[in-house]
């Protein structure tokens, strides 16, 4: 004989029969799932920022002594012309080589004289830079001339100020002088988007430096990053190393692995805490409804059908909470800029995040309801009917 389940509407009506308890449970579950969304959005945002920062056709050449940190690199200024002249695989169009000499520094940047300076990333570039950094798009203003800088869209988050402080015409102060903001750019969420760009020569003069941090090379079709790598290893006297830009940012992903692991651990802990909260609520619901559950059995519903109805109620609440949390996360969390060592990145509530968040919500409902449902199976019908 097939199992006769309680009507679907019975479980839904039960949710609304105890509005306060249901609302509190919904609120608790929504908070738990929202926390999961925030942590997953952090991890996904960090991963996406590093993943989109690299271009497979770009090779970074910097000092051997800098290990994996470009900020510590110092190479001779002639490196750019030497690489362009020595390597066959560098892309060239309209007599222009895809070679971008850059000076990359971390420095204290003041937005407002009344507030303390914040650590910002400044990149001195030439007009060759946009040829290689294809994600970069100017959204406002013009390319910087003398005494001017371009700012990334996420710079406000990096410097801890409001975007209005970085409007065109405003002034930034770093390395002992003022710089007027001439324009803004986006970079599709890449690390560049939280940087300040200015003219290479002007930055060198300001810092009294003649060297470069790196040279970025755009590869022609058919050329391989290993050709540049081989050249750098053969020219021992230059003390250069070459790394494909995607490999460079992939290595940074490894560097941030502990942060990501910690994030996943937080997701797990939040989920387990949510399961215990759900258990507590559902145990309370079962205990207060012993008489009702026994009556259902007395009129012919089998214990398994009653247990299934309890699980259905919990899942209804959990999934409603998941959807609510997803809406809040998409509206308030998605796109929020977060500062980190290399710059800033936007929290990302993407399809994977929604799947993990809603999946966690589903597990909260299911695992939180199974033990109380099993408990309900153990009641004696006679004693249950006599219960107050």
């Amino acid at each position: 004989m097939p199992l006769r389940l309680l009507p679907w509407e019975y479980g839904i009506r039960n949710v609304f029969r105890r509005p306060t308890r249901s609302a509190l449970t919904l609120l608790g579950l929504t908070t738990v799932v929202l926390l999961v969304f925030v942590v997953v959005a952090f991890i996904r945002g960090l991963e996406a920022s590093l993943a989109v920062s690299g271009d497979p056709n770009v090779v970074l050449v910097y000092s051997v002594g800098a290990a994996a940190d470009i900020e510590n690199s110092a190479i001779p200024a002639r490196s750019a012309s030497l690489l362009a002249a020595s390597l066959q695989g560098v892309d060239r169009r309209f007599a222009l080589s895809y070679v971008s000499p850059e000076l990359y520094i971390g420095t204290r940047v003041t937005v407002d004289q009344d507030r303390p300076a914040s650590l910002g990333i400044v990149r001195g570039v030439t007009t060759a830079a946009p040829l290689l950094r294809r994600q970069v798009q100017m959204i406002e203003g013009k390319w910087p001339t003398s005494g001017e800088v371009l700012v990334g869209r996420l710079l406000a988050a990096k410097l801890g100020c409001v975007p209005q402080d970085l409007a065109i015409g405003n002034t930034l102060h770093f390395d002992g002088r003022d710089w007027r903001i001439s324009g803004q750019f986006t970079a599709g969420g890449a690390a560049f988007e939280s940087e300040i760009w200015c003219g290479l020569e002007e930055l060198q003069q300001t810092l009294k430096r003649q060297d470069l941090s790196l040279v970025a090379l755009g590869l022609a079709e058919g050329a391989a990053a290993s050709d540049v790598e081989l050249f750098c290893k053969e020219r021992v006297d230059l003390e250069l190393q070459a790394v494909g830009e995607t490999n460079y940012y992939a290595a940074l992903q490894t560097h941030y692995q502990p942060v990501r692991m910690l994030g996943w651990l937080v997701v797990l802990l939040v989920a387990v805490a949510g399961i215990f909260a759900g258990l507590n609520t559902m145990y309370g619901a079962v205990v207060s409804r012993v008489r009702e559950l026994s009556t259902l059995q007395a009129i012919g519903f089998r214990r398994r059908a009653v247990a299934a109805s309890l699980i259905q109620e919990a899942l209804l609440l959990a999934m409603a909470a998941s959807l609510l949390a997803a809406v809040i996360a998409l509206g308030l969390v998605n796109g929020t800029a977060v500062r980190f060592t290399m710059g800033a990145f936007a929290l990302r509530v993407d399809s994977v995040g929604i799947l993990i968040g809603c999946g966690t919500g589903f597990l909260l409902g299911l695992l939180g309801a199974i033990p109380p449902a099993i408990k309900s199976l153990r009641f004696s019908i006679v004693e249950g009917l006599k219960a107050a």
Partner: protein
Amino acid sequence: MLHILRPASFLFLALITFSGCGNNSNAPSGQTPSATGAAYVLKSEPSGAQGIKAALEAAKENNEIVVVGRIGGAVNPWVDGQAAFTLVDLELKPCPDSEGCPSPWDYCCDVDLLPKAMVMVKFVDAQGKTIPQHAKSLLGVKESQMLVVHGRAKRDETGNLSILADGVFVK
């Protein structure tokens, strides 16, 4: 309680397992030479091997050369996708275990000495082109391994020495 703990611990183990199984190295592991590489592996040690330092001093353009050294000189001494690597003079010692260095073949304790004790070795075909296969999978060699390399010396205009290798003996 077990009903709760079992799924939770499973989830935890799954997360640890899936997040920890990434392998960042694209380089092949290198144990036995490939069919192409076997032609380059010598059965006996070539005579007259000199150290890298001596070779850097004395080697003349296009002369036959035999050097002995260890694969190393950087965390990644290889050139991805090409049969090329850097070889370091045996006078330099890899970082001792007591330093806790995860890659002792990078000689991070003697970085200053490396430029004058390291040479690039490229395995080339009959046309003199570097073989487009990772040296690990071509020759079955790995970091810190002691090799005797036979080939021809090639100097660039600034005096940097490379060895266009045609044979290797693994010591």
